[in-house]
């Protein structure tokens, strides 16, 4: 029987994120949480494999107690159990420490796993680092940005989009994959599934002590990442008047907006080429 693990994260639902401007961290307690969209697609990929090949799915997350919600949702969608890593010492972990903590939990709860699924990135921090780091921590192969996969015996064949072409990759089990939200369409949980997820299936809580992790190797204390600045992008409009001769105005336009124009048109504009043409 295959043993699948889906790592997931609870992210804030709101588009206006309540940032703590002092620490540069998100004030998660102020936001309504939801399952990170890419994680939901990863869960769907695992559910489809389970239905085709059999197996058992463990959904796992690290977060505050309220993150239990997304594990219950995962169970309602078809996961077999939920594991919540929650401990005040785990708070504030960066991606490196998160993957370290997740790896230790996986080794404890499901050491003989076949495949770990992650979302390719999260909608709140967008680093896309935990999946690949988790493969390193677990000492197994990892493939990021998988679109679609199939399982043949102990080999996973995957496709991923890379620039303008589609790559086909193969990997032997066990391994870690991160899934994009493009191919798999997450199913809705049924109301029977939702009732059962709360009344029939338990979620296991694991603390740092349960994982035999000291306060020094988890959470914000162990995280080498320092956030210098985090801000919500601000859209604004400004009126700019460019004065002078036609050549001067055009040059100024290209100086100011050449990069954006290149991006939009798909051609590389260089101001000096333009100069040369004018000179000719």
């Amino acid at each position: 029987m295959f043993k699948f693990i889906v790592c997931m994260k609870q992210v804030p639902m709101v588009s206006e994120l309540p940032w703590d401007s002092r620490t540069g961290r998100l004030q998660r307690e102020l936001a309504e949480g939801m399952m990170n969209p890419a994680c939901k697609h990863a869960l769907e990929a695992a559910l489809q494999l389970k239905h085709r090949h059999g197996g058992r799915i463990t959904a796992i997350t690290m977060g505050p107690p309220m993150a239990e919600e997304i594990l219950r949702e995962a169970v309602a969608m078809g996961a077999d159990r939920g594991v919540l890593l929650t401990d005040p010492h785990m708070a504030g972990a960066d991606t490196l420490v998160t993957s370290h903590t997740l790896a230790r939990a996986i080794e404890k709860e499901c050491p003989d796993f076949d495949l770990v699924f992650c979302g390719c990135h999260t909608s709140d921090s967008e680093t896309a680092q935990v999946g690949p780091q988790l493969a390193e921590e677990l000492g197994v192969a990892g493939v990021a940005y998988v679109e679609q996969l199939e399982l043949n015996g102990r080999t996973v064949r995957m496709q991923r989009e890379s620039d303008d072409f589609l790559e086909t990759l193969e990997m032997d089990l066990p391994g870690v994959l991160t899934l994009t939200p493009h191919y798999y369409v997450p199913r809705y949980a049924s109301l029977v599934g939702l009732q059962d997820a709360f009344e029939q299936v338990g979620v296991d809580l694991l603390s740092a002590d349960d994982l035999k992790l000291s306060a020094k190797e988890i959470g914000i204390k162990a995280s080498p990442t320092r956030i210098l600045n985090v801000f919500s992008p601000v859209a604004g409009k400004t009126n700019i008047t460019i004065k002078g001769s036609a050549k001067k105005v055009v040059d100024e336009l290209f100086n100011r907006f050449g990069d954006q124009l290149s991006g939009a048109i798909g051609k590389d504009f260089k101001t000096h080429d333009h100069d040369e043409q004018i000179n000719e």
Partner: protein
Amino acid sequence: MDFNPCMKHKVVRKFVRDFSETEIAPLVYDLDREARFPWEIIEKMRPLNFFGLQVPRAYGGAEVDSISYAIIIEELSRVSAAIGLCVSVHNSVGAYPLVKFGTASQKKRFLPPLARGEQIGAFCLTEANAGSDAGGVETHAALIEDHYVINGTKIFVTNGGVCGTTLIFAKTPAEDRRKQNSVFIVEQGTPGFSVGEIEDLCGMRANPVSSLFFEDCRVPKENLLGHLGDGLKIGLDALDTGRIGIAAQALGIAQAALDASVKYAKERQQFRKPISSFQTIQNYLADMATEVDAGRLLLYRAAAYKDSGRPFGAEAAKAKLFCSKLATRVTNLAVQIHGGYGYSKEYDVERYFRDAKVTEIYEGTSEVQQMVIARHLLAEPT
């Protein structure tokens, strides 16, 4: 006393909201304009157990608690009141009386197709000369050999145009005035049973409300629900449960109108300011939010009473009375805040305004709710 929703109720709300906004919202405008029943949405709702909300697991239902039930109807109605109505009526007065009063063989036969949503349920009481006065129905049933023969016309039957199994409230002669009515289970296709034209109504236009005709309609005597003469008992019980559904529906419409108004008030500029900066608009929004909140508390209390096995008739009547009235007030203010646009079909609040009114009328008018509440009040010892 804990006023925070538990995790299960939060997740149920999130799930139904996600489903409604993704699958239903893109179609609501057209469904309302075309007065079309959305079978394609019903198809998607069937496997998710929307049609077996109060049916036990043994018969293929989800058997959700009453607060979840209220949340489900509220969230569906927040996007489409007509679909919320279909689901509410199907579950509360179409299927639930079978759960509560059906014999083992009736449950086995009729509940699974209802719970799977293969058959849509309905309950018909209202007639041309009987509505609030249930005892005044003229449709009658007579036992001839081993069949009841039903004759009469029912009007304004919610889900009437699409119902597969319907419960008919009919007169069955008896000496005791309170025992003169009974409820029968009639299936689509029974000879003598036919569906009239779909009504052209002000709101809830995606729900096929119609008349149902019974002309020497013969149903096996096994299709009598409960005992002969139990009609009023079953009807009143079904309506108690139904009122939780209608209150939830009215609340969903009001919430939608409030959400739309807050959004519009922040966007709409007049005198070079968003209209939300004007105190009058703020007062409107504050009143709307307060009413919606108060209605929700009344509704969840009635649902919680039902789950704990306490009598909840008066609580359900209060919730239905208050929520339906607040829905018309809140949607009225929503149109006012939207100004001319609110009166245009281009904006959803115009639909909310039309949909809200009937919640004060069906499953017991506001005046009947007041009667029920007063009866409970006056029966209490002083």
